[in-house]
């Protein structure tokens, strides 16, 4: 009886959060799935079964073989940006987390330096994107500097509103999502294991590869899930930093929405969701998220 009552109270305490997720997350996802199989015309959606959203999306994919159709090209481009960002955030994030976890010895300094990495996360992403403009623009600091020392004659055009600036901004914005989970895994590693490895004659490199990386794997996987899902669906960073010229999976959805083609937007969302789920389930095979909290 007492147990029943406790469980009921707990259920009541969790109910408001569940309700929010039901109304603003689960139900909307259901609508995305349903509407993706609706018909549409120039200005409204029509609640009748049609796979037009999907067929329009893949238009020309068979006719243009062996060339790639727009949607495949766009997804390949998105995957490429995703892969580049993932590799860079992983390398930088791992190194930063490693420094914080193993080389900063005082607890206070650890907190201060972690906070230093976190504060930008609490400020606006758009501003952090705009911030690159005075540095990378035609007359920006980088071009001026390179011209000043005579390395280049003409300003480099590919610095801003290019794939380069998109990846740079993504790394700038989202390395934080790698640092935190990896750091979290690393501080749980028993320091005696590392001492034991040194005592047994392992080099620093061997310790890193055989002890630290395997034990930090859960953090690496969680960080990777964050970065990959963010970049796969991103349209803001790619839009602003790409000068609205680079296509991506997220931007297709946005432009369909702007054209009021809701079923087509929903179909693209379902496709994006499917690909994201495949990537995540591949990654979660490596690690059980719940155990890591």
């Amino acid at each position, binding site marked *: 009886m007492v147990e029943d009552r*406790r*469980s009921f*109270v*707990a*259920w009541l*305490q*969790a109910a*408001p*959060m*569940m309700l*929010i*997720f039901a109304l*603003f*997350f*689960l139900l*909307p*996802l259901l*609508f*995305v799935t349903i*509407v993706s199989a609706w018909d549409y015309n120039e200005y409204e959606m029509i609640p009748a079964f049609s796979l037009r959203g999907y067929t329009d999306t893949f238009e020309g994919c068979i006719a243009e073989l062996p060339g790639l159709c727009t949607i495949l090209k766009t997804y390949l481009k998105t995957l490429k940006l995703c892969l580049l960002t993932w590799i860079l955030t992983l390398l*930088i994030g791992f*190194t*930063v987390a490693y*420094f*914080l976890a193993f*080389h900063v010895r005082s607890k206070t300094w650890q907190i201060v330096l972690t906070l230093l990495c976190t*504060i*930008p996360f*609490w*400020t*606006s*992403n*758009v*501003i*952090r*994107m*705009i*911030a690159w*403009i*005075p540095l990378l*623009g035609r*007359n*920006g600091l980088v071009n001026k500097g390179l011209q000043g020392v005579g390395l280049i004659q003409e300003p480099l055009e590919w610095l801003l509103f290019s794939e380069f600036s998109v990846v740079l901004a993504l790394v*700038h914005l989202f*390395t934080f999502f790698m640092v935190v989970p990896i750091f979290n895994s690393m501080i749980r590693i028993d320091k005696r294991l590392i001492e034991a490895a040194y005592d047994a004659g392992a080099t620093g490199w061997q310790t890193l590869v055989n002890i630290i990386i395997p034990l930090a794997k859960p953090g690496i996987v969680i960080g990777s899930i964050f970065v990959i*899902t*963010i970049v*796969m*669906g991103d349209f*803001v960073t790619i*839009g*602003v930093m790409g000068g*609205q010229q680079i296509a991506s999976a*997220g931007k297709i*959805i*946005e432009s369909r*929405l702007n054209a009021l083609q809701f079923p087509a937007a*929903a179909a693209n*969302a379902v496709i994006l*969701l499917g690909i994201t789920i495949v990537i995540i389930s591949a990654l979660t095979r490596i690690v059980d998220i719940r155990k890591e909290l």
Partner: protein
Amino acid sequence: MGEKRSRSFYVLAAFFTAYVLFLYGPMFAIYILSFQGPDGGLTFPMNGVSLQWFSKVFSGTGIVDIGAAFKRSLKLGLVVMVLTVVLSVSAGLAFRKSFRGATFLFYVAIASLIMPSIITSLGIALEFRLLDDSIIKSGAEGWTTAMGLFTSGLGAHLTWTLPFGLLIMFAIFNRFDGRLEEAARDLGATPWQTFRHVVLPIILPSVVGIGLFGFTLSWDELARSSQTIGSVNTLPLELQGLTTTVTKPDIYALGTLTSAVSFLVIFLALVVILVLQARQRRHGSDAGKGMV
């Protein structure tokens, strides 16, 4: 641990410093440039120093109605903050006992956190569109839309802030000593008294942290707001719109102001957390002090 620092320490410390410069350098560039002189442009060098771009933002000339967007974002951020704190603490307490659907709620929260924002945003927009359609069909006179800042917009923000709140609660309670509650119960405290006088004071610094996440994430939210905010814009949306049209440093001035609010909130939250922790250390434990 007084041993000499190895060479790898210095290499890594240099790397870390470079990373911090990479994080902050560009931001400081626009903070400085927002004080650009009247004839200055979007890039260095500074062409004199002035507050002209700030006054332009405040007077609203040249830029869309920023004051209104500012107030909207502020109000929304505060509401999101309060709801995030209350719902996260409540759900966090629930997870300490077992209840039906606990695992499900956990996975839904994680899914909401990592779901590409554009999909959530699209879903909520569709939901409200269909709702509007059915209300209009049922013959409601003059109905326009249920979509708005504090309906669809608020919901969209909560799908982003609540997972953070819940994860922070998990982190708190993983380190929480359950015996403290048992002791309170044994001494005859009601569940509410136990929460109010034992649990809450202990977790309070972290709860302030949840509030900090709630406000700042909402204040800067862009992707999920994009389709769900209705006819008005929040500050980040206005800023994003300006990136394609503005060629004067007023956008930097606006960016500096927006960041100033973020920094102010972060600073206040950190001060409150430090004060609370200091108080806990003073009053927290009388262990080892003998009988009083």
